[in-house]
């Protein structure tokens, strides 16, 4: 039986959302849903797998897979893929997967699509809807011409839904031979991630060009602090050096999904919205009433963010 495989690092990175998506595709293709888990294994792995209708859990463990390393990960997945009649391998589009997924595809002679936001199967054919032009358009790719495919999916906009009938998955350890694999790229130095990450923040206040000048970015920090949230930024002001790269939200920055996202002086270019569209409540503050950001926002204030931001700080504290 051909297989749709959801592949995750441990149980992180939107595994449950992707298993939900994978189940639909497997049903559409009449294929078996397998979950390949690489690296750290969660204790409740089998329970999660059963809830989402997984037929087989394949565990890829090795002393070389304790922490992520690109060359080892690609080779491990290639060995795994060759052991099965794999039709489609779905990966959550993490930073590492951006490179690992296409490398794996080339190694197992598969086709590859990244930036997927929806995957469907009809009449035996797989179609992937992906984001393009920085989110300005969507494209639909049909996968035909290769016997197997690797598809990267942005899981931030997906929802997890348990299977109507839970399964009792078989759990197997995949035989791997990684003895000969040595990483070709050596990490020399790493800047320590300072404090919490905006990807995990519940409240985010983000600033853009509307702030007018670098020194005004402190207003973003002040409101973020008053709300117990984190400060973020659009790419233009990161490029200008007003805010650190780690705070950049959007296509080439962080993908966030906070409960509250306040965008101040941000026009709402698609490239930015990719990183905050999943916020539960989005508030826009912009001088231009026609700014695109208002189309995405739940609440808007039309005005100068240099006046509104301090007023919000006072309103929160008052």
């Amino acid at each position: 039986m051909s297989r749709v495989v959801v592949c995750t690092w441990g149980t992180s990175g939107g595994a449950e959302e992707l298993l939900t998506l994978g189940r639909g595709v497997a049903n559409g293709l009449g294929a078996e849903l397998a979950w390949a888990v690489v690296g750290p294994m969660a204790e409740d792995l089998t329970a999660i797998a059963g809830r989402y209708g997984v037929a087989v859990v394949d565990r890829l463990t090795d002393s070389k897979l304790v922490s992520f390393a690109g060359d080892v990960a690609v080779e491990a997945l290639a060995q795994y893929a060759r052991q099965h009649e794999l039709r489609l391998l779905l990966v959550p589009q993490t930073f590492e997967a951006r490179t690992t997924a296409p490398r794996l595809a080339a190694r197992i002679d598969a086709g590859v699509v990244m930036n997927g936001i929806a995957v469907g199967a009809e009449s035996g054919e797989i179609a992937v809807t992906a984001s393009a032009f920085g989110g300005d358009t969507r494209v639909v790719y049909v996968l035909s011409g290769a016997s197997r495919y690797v598809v990267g999916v942005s899981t931030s906009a997906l929802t997890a839904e348990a299977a109507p009938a839970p399964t009792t998955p078989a759990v197997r350890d995949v035989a791997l031979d990684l003895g000969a694999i040595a990483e070709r790229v050596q990490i020399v130095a790493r800047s320590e991630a300072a404090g919490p990450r905006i990807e995990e923040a519940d409240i985010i206040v983000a600033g853009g060009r509307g702030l007018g000048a670098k020194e005004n970015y402190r207003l973003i920090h002040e409101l973020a602090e008053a709300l117990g949230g984190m400060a973020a930024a659009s790419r233009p002001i990161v490029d200008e050096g007003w805010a650190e790269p780690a705070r950049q939200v959007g296509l080439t920055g962080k993908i966030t999904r906070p409960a509250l996202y306040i965008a101040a002086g941000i026009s709402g270019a698609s490239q930015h919205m990719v990183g905050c569209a999943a916020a539960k409540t989005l508030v826009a503050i912009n001088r231009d009433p026609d700014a695109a950001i208002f189309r995405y926002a739940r609440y808007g204030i039309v005005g100068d963010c240099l006046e509104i931001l301090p007023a919000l700080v006072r309103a929160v504290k008052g």
Partner: protein
Amino acid sequence: MALRIVVCAKEVLDPDAVNNYALEGKLVIGDDGKSLTQSSIPRLMNAYDEQAIEAALRVREAGVVCTITVVSVGDPGEILKHAASLGVDEPVAIQADTTRLDHHGVAHLLAAFVRSRGGADLVLCGRQASDDDQGVVPALLGEHLGMPVVTIARSVEVAAAGEGFSVRVVRVTPDGDETVAVGAPAIVTISNELGQARYPTMAGRMAARKKKITSVTAGDLGVAAAALAPRVSLVKQFVPTVKGSCEVLTGATPAEAAAVLIARLRAESVLR
């Protein structure tokens, strides 16, 4: 021995123009249901690829003796002239009908080109193309050429190491900067954090007029048509709709508007 740098470049529709049309709700999809056909949208070099050329020029300026070849698949006359005006040694067009190629095919052609030149020490690519945002070609190329791939670089430095070269790259990761070392040959993808790419000088533009663009075909590179058969076909493109249910909160003063917003967020338990 000179360091052989190959930069891969792609011609794209100006993403800013596309974005402006999209924001105004005026982006038009052509009759084929998949192409952006507005002739007013300029075609230009993918900005990340321009930054890859910039990275190559900075390696040269750091004192590394090198040759810089810029290669593009399709009929990329204008962007290769631009590359020539920046002072690269050889602009190369791989003639192909790009409407019939997917990333798999493009990677095959680029790999065959690098092999046809007896290899390269450093292949630089933009982190992704701003049209499809796929970013898969550098990784595919790395596998085809057996080279390690280092992605999302903000800086690239090359030093002589024994008979060859070693490359030091600062990568931009979600956890902050990461400095890595890799032996050449290697592929590095360049991100916008590298900084502004330079503009051609007048002298550069003059010199570029005399520079010939090398043209090769898949046949010249020994690539069979079957190896270029697409595996992924674009069948449709559309502009996503945004629901747009914004409630504009007003007040006589910023303080009033701010108070209304905070009260509303508290009432909905978004804020405590």
